[in-house]
């Protein structure tokens, strides 16, 4: 059975009595160890789907199971990244990374080593004692990656984590995430993005989502072998796949 499995998922918002359907009959599977992207235009409900997987959004209809357990609320084996790094401004970088451990009342000392190692792996070893306002946007989002990974989660959920960054920083972050991902095998990742290239570079599989009705219309396997590097983005097959995906999104809009 699939690790994450959604069947007939539906989400209806009810602002002032006028029901708005944000998700309509969403079916998808994510296998253990897979990196899956959900690709779609802004406002198509991808984030809603991710928040459901995080247990932060109620499900109006259908079923969602993670590790064969029905979703009832936030799980403790999940690491999450939002579009905004959401760092606490009064805490140092290392304390921000340790925040999940503090919340789950773990013994801090062993986690501290792990946090330091994570910060080193994203090139922030010199910034442990800095505070968020002293960092650039890309650096803050790197701290946020470390925070998401500090409890060694089996699922990593990312909600457009790089969309607020400039294009150059964004490319750097993609490569960084690719490297981090390829250093381990055990995790399963669900990644929300509206960038086709980002999705193709990072994912094993891409679920294409469309607006109205907000549902998954395509399930595309990314055939490139790992380990990948940023050079992949220059190759013809890469760009052909990007073109095909763009076509799918445009088609679904016309139809």
């Amino acid at each position, binding site marked *: 059975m699939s690790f994450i499995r959604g069947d007939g998922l539906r989400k209806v918002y009810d602002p002032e009595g006028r029901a708005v359907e944000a998700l309509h009959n969403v079916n998808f599977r994510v296998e253990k160890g897979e990196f899956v992207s959900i690709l779609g235009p802004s406002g198509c409900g991808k984030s809603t789907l991710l928040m459901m997987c*995080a*247990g*932060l959004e109620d499900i109006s209809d259908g079923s969602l199971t993670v590790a064969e357990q029905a979703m009832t*609320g*936030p799980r*403790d084996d*999940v690491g*999450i990244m*939002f579009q*905004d790094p*959401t760092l*606490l*401004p*009064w805490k140092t970088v290392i304390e921000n990374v340790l*925040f*999940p451990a*503090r*919340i*789950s009342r773990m013994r801090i000392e062993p986690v501290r080593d792990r946090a330091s190692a994570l910060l080193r792996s994203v090139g922030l070893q*010199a*910034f442990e004692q*800095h*505070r*968020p*306002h*002293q*960092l*650039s946007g*890309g*650096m803050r989002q790197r701290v946020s990656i470390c925070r998401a990974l500090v409890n060694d989660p089996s699922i990593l959920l990312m909600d457009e984590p790089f969309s607020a960054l400039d294009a150059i*920083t964004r490319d750097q972050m993609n490569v960084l995430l690719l490297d981090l991902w390829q250093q381990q095998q055990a995790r399963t990742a669900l990644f929300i993005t509206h960038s086709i290239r980002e999705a193709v570079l990072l994912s094993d599989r891409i679920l294409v989502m469309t607006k109205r009705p907000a549902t998954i219309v395509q399930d595309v396997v990314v055939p490139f072998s790992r380990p990948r590097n940023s050079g992949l983005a220059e190759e013809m097959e890469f760009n052909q796949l990007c073109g095909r995906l763009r076509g799918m999104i445009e088609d679904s809009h016309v139809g």
Partner: protein
Amino acid sequence: MSAEAVSAHVLPAWRRLDDWRRMAAGAALPAGFILICLVALETLARVLAVPEVLFPPPSRVLAALALNASTLCYHAALSASQVLAALVISLLVGVAIATVFTLSRVINDMFAPLFVVLQIIPKIALAPLFVVWFGPGSLSHLSFAVCLSFFPILAGARAGFEETSADAVRLCRALRANGWQTLIYVKLPMALPQLFVGAKVSTTLCIIGVVLGEFVSARAGIGWYIVRAAALSQTANILAALAVLSLFGLLIYGLVAAGETMVRRHMFG
């Protein structure tokens, strides 16, 4: 990217000195204006020979201040300690109520509107009631001052709690933090700037509360001193007490404002 990111956030000593100089320059003009006013009043009072009971010239007030310095200090210290105590209690009460409101939706919906309605009552008129309840001593002054001044802190804390970035609260939920953890780790620190805004308003209300309480009934304190001086037509003494009271008010307000600046600078960068 790191070079520009790690810009100088620790102010060098000369910049700090510069801050002080700028502040001194900012204070110079208002202070100069006050000085001119005092000289003008002094001249007017002398030239027009206004009776001293109506309007004592500033020099007389200064003399009264020097003459009664120890008495004034005694009464001022008494009132000051009550104002400080009232401020601390108001902080505790205001934050505690806001905390209960933020932890329980039901209690919030039940009581929050009532607290707002209560603010419409002219609470100053309640001062005699506090004397009836708590006697003529400092307990009634203290409780009256707290009653007058806790609301801005409650409002500030509530605004601060509500304002807490939705993202940070969502992060806490995702990490399965309980209500207390969310409050202690995220909401309370984030509410501090708003809390200080409330505390600044409360500071002046505390002073009003204590002095008014002493007006109504007391055996000591700066409010009592003013009432007694008025009864004896010692206008210079009234103004001297007023000067002391104003200085004290400025001092305590300055302390709270300094606390606010420190929190903003050190916690939020």
